[in-house]
């Protein structure tokens, strides 16, 4: 099965190399915009990768993943507002807040399955959205400006574009490495077994819900990290980050790239966001093309881009 140099491996390697070398290109051409664009892409790829752990490996179709982006972001924004600018406080708080939220939401949502699960995670994310809209002290509907990026005591300067980009990229690769380790661990195998056949796994004696909940919390925490980075990237956080169409975007990235593949979500995020950027440069009404395109991808492109590349290899 394992060809040493499949099309998939080559494409993945090219994408990774491209991401690593991007600041060099940006510096050589003086094109700052491309670096800003790709910082956002890398952060959302991180969010998509975490969703993939839950959805692709765990089989839990969460439609409320954007909530963690908001929670991570608000943790940074609120602490900054209250005068706590240190990243050593902000980031752990962002992760802890996301993990706590995931624990509560997961414990409730995992009582249900199938479409109920999709809808209940969606509804909880909407709830988080309304809570954020009601936070009058922190901007409410209008959102919260983060005047100062997280301060890492001179270790790394988040206001420096290149340093910030590499921090995000490092986080992305770190998370992917972690996911790789998780997926190939005993825990990961149990979770994937539960995806295939929950009843059988339970019959063998695995406490299904407990394993799924842990997977849910890990994925949520990872996405909280993406949220904290995103707030630093835009210097702003607002309820709109948690709006359910954002969760939809993340889902699209995962499925477009290929669910249950390690680098699929990264490729999905790059393709989706570049396509969005490209189409919006051609026409103001880019969604008019993007919408039917999604429909076509679902109708004809099973397994996403990774699936397509896998087929290329064989035929």
């Amino acid at each position: 099965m394992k060809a040493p140099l499949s099309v998939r491996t080559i494409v993945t390697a090219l994408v990774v190399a491209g991401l690593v070398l991007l600041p060099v290109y940006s510096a050589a051409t003086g094109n700052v915009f491309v670096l800003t664009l790709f910082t956002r892409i890398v952060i959302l790829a991180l969010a998509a990768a975490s969703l993939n752990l839950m959805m692709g490996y765990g089989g839990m179709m969460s439609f409320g993943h954007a909530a963690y982006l908001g929670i991570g972001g608000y943790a940074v924004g609120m602490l900054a507002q209250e005068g706590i600018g240190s990243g050593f406080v902000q980031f752990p708080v962002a992760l802890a807040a996301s993990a706590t939220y995931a624990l509560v939401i997961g414990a409730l949502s995992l009582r249900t399955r199938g479409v109920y699960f999709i809808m209940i995670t969606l509804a909880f994310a909407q709830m988080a959205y309304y809570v954020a809209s009601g936070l009058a002290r922190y901007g409410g509907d209008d959102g919260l400006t983060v005047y100062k990026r997280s301060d890492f005591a001179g270790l790394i300067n988040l206001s420096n574009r290149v340093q910030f980009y590499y921090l995000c990229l490092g986080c992305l690769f770190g998370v992917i490495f972690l996911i790789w380790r998780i997926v190939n661990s005993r825990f990961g195998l149990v979770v994937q077994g539960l995806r295939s056949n929950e009843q059988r796994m339970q019959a063998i004696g695995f406490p299904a819900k407990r394993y799924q909940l842990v997977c849910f919390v890990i994925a949520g925490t990872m996405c909280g990290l993406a949220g904290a980075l995103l707030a630093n990237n835009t210097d702003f956080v607002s309820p709109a980050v948690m709006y359910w169409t954002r969760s939809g975007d993340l889902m699209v990235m995962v499925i477009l790239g290929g669910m249950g593949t390690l680098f699929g979500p990264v490729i999905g995020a790059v393709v989706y966001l570049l396509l969005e950027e490209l189409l919006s440069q051609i026409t103001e009404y880019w969604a008019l093309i993007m919408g039917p395109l999604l429909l076509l991808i679902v109708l004809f492109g099973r397994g996403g881009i990774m699936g397509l590349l896998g087929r290329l290899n064989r035929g």
Partner: protein
Amino acid sequence: MLLVVEQILNGLQFGLLLFLLAAGLTLVFGIMDFVNLAHGSLYMMGAYFAATFVAWTGNFVLGAVLALGATLLLGIVLEFTALRHLYGRDHLDHVLATFGLILFFNEAVRLIWGPAGLALPLPSWLSVPVPILPGIHYPAYRLAIIVVALAVALLLYLGVMRTRIGMLIRAGASNREMIGALGINIKLLYTLVFGLGAALAGLAGLMQAPILTVQIGMGENILILAFVVIVIGGIGSIRGAFLAAIFVGLIDTLGRAFLPNLLRQILSSAAASTAAPALSSMLIYLLMAMVLVVRPEGLFPATRR
């Protein structure tokens, strides 16, 4: 007293409107096993069609009927060209494809009608308050919504439970292969059900249009509420959708109306005025969480499979 009656009626009216949306959603899910996120877009299209046709014909009722027909047709075309190829696929595929449709519809509306919202003015005979109890007046139009929605709910019940088509629909829900084998054109039946769901969504949209502005994205907020309704009621169950819709409508409306005052008695008024709006928007989600903890399949799960 007056306020309480008025708010209860408002809640009932909102609940019935939610039912029209949720009924279509739950029918399509119960029978075709299809998750339709674009249901909210059909609601939006109903409102836009109504605003256009009423302005065009100059007659509210005629415009509404035309809009209803247009949404029905749109639903049928949508099912025929795209969605029928997705039956039997993974739910995730449904979510993704209909998510794409939402993007498409929102953008198409922006292209055709422009980004600004439309207003749908009421005819004079519907905009007067009518006395319902001695000393209590209620807007005629909201009363009309209640009457129409109740009538539709009754028709839907009779249609599904008492007619031949309704029997086929129920049979299709319990075993699609079998009724196909018995010589029923199941594809046509599915198209019909989808069209019906679309028309119900359109009806809800066009009735809501004069109360709120007709605008892009109006379908998305209410779609989530409709989801909450069918999750509470039990997916696939029309009876559950009806009861849950009224329940959610009442709780949401009454919560928004009375929670601020209630909170003010416990908390300081500053804290109450910050907490109240967030808490009243959260109320139905809390309710849903509670229902799911007690009954993960909803209050009235459809007994099939």
